């Protein structure tokens, strides 16, 4: 008998017991749905991250002391001073170093008209803006003069500007207080999602001003983050090695110490780190989904055994009028495969719907991040394949059982 007749028969059986079929498919639906969800959401996040990183400029190395040798400042930890940075910039070993920017961060409270906002105030020099491709939407970024004069000026992000002043334009030249010190807003930056501090909005003030107003005296002249922009086409591994050699020399560190003293990552390697985490999460969810698929498969096997029992007479009749064993086996195998494949399709639809809503919600919460939905067609194909395979594996035994029924006994079965 032709396969398409089996498929039609299977579909009819499925619709006869709609509720039962749906319950049976639940394990498959959940398993496939969660895999599709996590893969789609992961891909969305990855695409977003890539777009953000490329927006920053990828030829940037970020270096920060790990604190493993002690706290960043004092207590015998690694302390990087602006003089160290100057030495790096002048190093003959690093001809491909294009720009360098040392940051010193302080937590603070920004106050305007009685409204208070927790902010991360980063002391930076003008290079910080060019390295990160930060461009002002209103006003200007910080200049060398601001740093030289230790001006009390600040550059803030669009979101904060809109919150406090309704628009970026309005914010420029307004006076705010950061930790009770008066500052003038000179510019507003386009918000960069991943540039935001975890402890509130990031604002940028001249490095010298931060030292004078906010840093404890022992921190003056130290930096907690170094951003280095290198020339396009530089071998990143070699560049990192040369930086290490110089830092070792400048800070009098041993070979062992240099490796643990700094966290050093180019922006492309952030993507690698993210990928590693993502693969870990996806593997974990897939493992859980795998269990769900096995349980679902056992459910399928169970219901198929019930079906074979219920339809013993039908099997007897089919054999009596000419069905051979393999035809009966194929019929029930196809029923199981159809059951799981439809479950898989529902799961795919569910997973896609969920991830679509996740993207919609993310866009509602962060409208300017511009997160876009992506399809992962391979995942959908593989998911359907896996679902069908589960049906094949767990349908085999019931189908085999059906095919081995003796027609005489099957017809007599009550």
């Amino acid at each position, binding site marked *: *008998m*032709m396969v398409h*007749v089996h498929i039609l028969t299977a579909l*009819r059986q499925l619709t*006869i017991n709609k509720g039962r079929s749906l319950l049976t498919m639940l394990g498959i639906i959940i398993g496939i749905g969660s895999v599709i969800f996590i893969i789609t959401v992961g891909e969305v996040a990855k695409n977003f991250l890539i777009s953000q990183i490329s927006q920053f400029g990828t030829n940037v190395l970020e270096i920060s002391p790990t604190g493993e040798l002690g706290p960043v400042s004092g207590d015998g930890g690694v302390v990087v001073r602006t003089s160290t940075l100057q030495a790096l910039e002048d190093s003959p070993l690093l001809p491909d170093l294009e720009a360098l920017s040392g940051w010193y961060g302080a937590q603070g409270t920004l106050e305007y008209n009685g409204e208070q906002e927790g902010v991360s105030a980063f002391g930076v020099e003008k290079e910080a803006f060019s390295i990160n491709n930060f461009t002002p939407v209103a006003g200007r970024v910080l200049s060398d003069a601001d740093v030289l004069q230790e001006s009390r000026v600040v550059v803030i992000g669009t979101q904060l500007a809109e919150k406090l002043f309704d628009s970026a334009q309005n914010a420029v030249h307004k006076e705010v207080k950061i930790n009770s010190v008066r500052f003038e807003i000179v510019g507003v930056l386009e918000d960069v999602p991943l540039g935001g501090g975890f402890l509130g909005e990031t604002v940028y003030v001249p490095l010298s001003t931060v030292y004078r107003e906010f840093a404890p005296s022992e921190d003056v002249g130290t930096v907690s983050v170094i951003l280095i922009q290198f020339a396009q086409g530089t071998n990143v591994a070699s560049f990192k090695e040369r930086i290490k050699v110089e830092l070792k020399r400048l800070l009098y560190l041993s070979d062992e110490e240099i490796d643990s003293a700094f966290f050093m990552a180019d922006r492309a390697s952030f993507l690698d780190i993210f990928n590693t985490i993502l693969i870990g999460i996806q593997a974990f969810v897939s493992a859980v989904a795998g269990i769900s698929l096995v349980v679902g498969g056992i459910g399928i096997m169970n219901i198929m055994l019930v079906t074979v029992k219920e339809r013993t*007479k*039908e099997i*007897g*009749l*089919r*054999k*009596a*009028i*000419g*069905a*051979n*064993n*393999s*035809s009966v086996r194929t019929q029930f195998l196809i029923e199981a495969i159809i059951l799981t494949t439809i479950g898989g399709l529902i799961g795919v639809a569910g997973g896609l719907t969920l991830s679509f809503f996740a993207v919609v919600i993310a866009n509602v919460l962060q409208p300017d991040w511009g997160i876009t939905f992506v399809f992962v067609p391979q995942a959908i194909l593989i998911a359907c394949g896996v679902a069908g395979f589960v049906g094949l594996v767990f349908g085999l035994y019931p189908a085999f059982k059906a095919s081995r029924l003796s*027609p*005489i006994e099957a*017809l007599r079965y009550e």
Partner: protein
Amino acid sequence: MSTVGVPLIRLEHIAKSYDLGEVTVHALRDISLTINEGEFVALMGPSGSGKSTLMNVLAFLDSPTQGSYQFSGTNIESFDEEYLADLRNTVIGFVFQQFHLLPRTTALDNVRLPMQYAGVKKAEQIERAQAAIEKVGLGSRMYHKPNELSGGQQQRVSIARALVNNPKVLFCDEPTGNLDSKTSVEVMNILSALHTEGKTIIMVTHEHDIAEFAQRTIHIKDGEII
């Protein structure tokens, strides 16, 4: 396959026993029997006599433990499952006491079933199924499902299904066993008409008035012809 002068069915010393461990049950003992093309034969006997087993052997549903079976001049030596399934599909038709129609399936689709296993094209399936249903007088009930048909009508659908692959023999297992006397006669009249057209019919029954429709009655008791 059919040759003039050769009987359609020839059984020689057929025996069928079931080994149940401690005891061996002899369902059929030394049955020799010839049925010619175009005959209408009734197999009669009390329950447990072996008449059903004999019919199962004749209808390729069961294999004998001893003896030889010639069908239309061909010795049925191989009782390979696939070969028997093919024979059941193409050279015989089956009518059951309990009709055995697929539920929730129209009369037309029920009648198409044997042709699906024979690999007949869909258009031809429908054409032949319609013709078979009209032949048993159910032309107006083509798209009715079994639960919308009376017992007699269901049995007529099952006769149509048995005829649709144009078999050499029609096997009827207590065809009127589930019917009242009036519809029994209707169904038997259809079988008689088929016989008149030349169809070979072998029918198991335990009712004498039903057996009277047949030309010849074979009585079986304790696995032997008496």
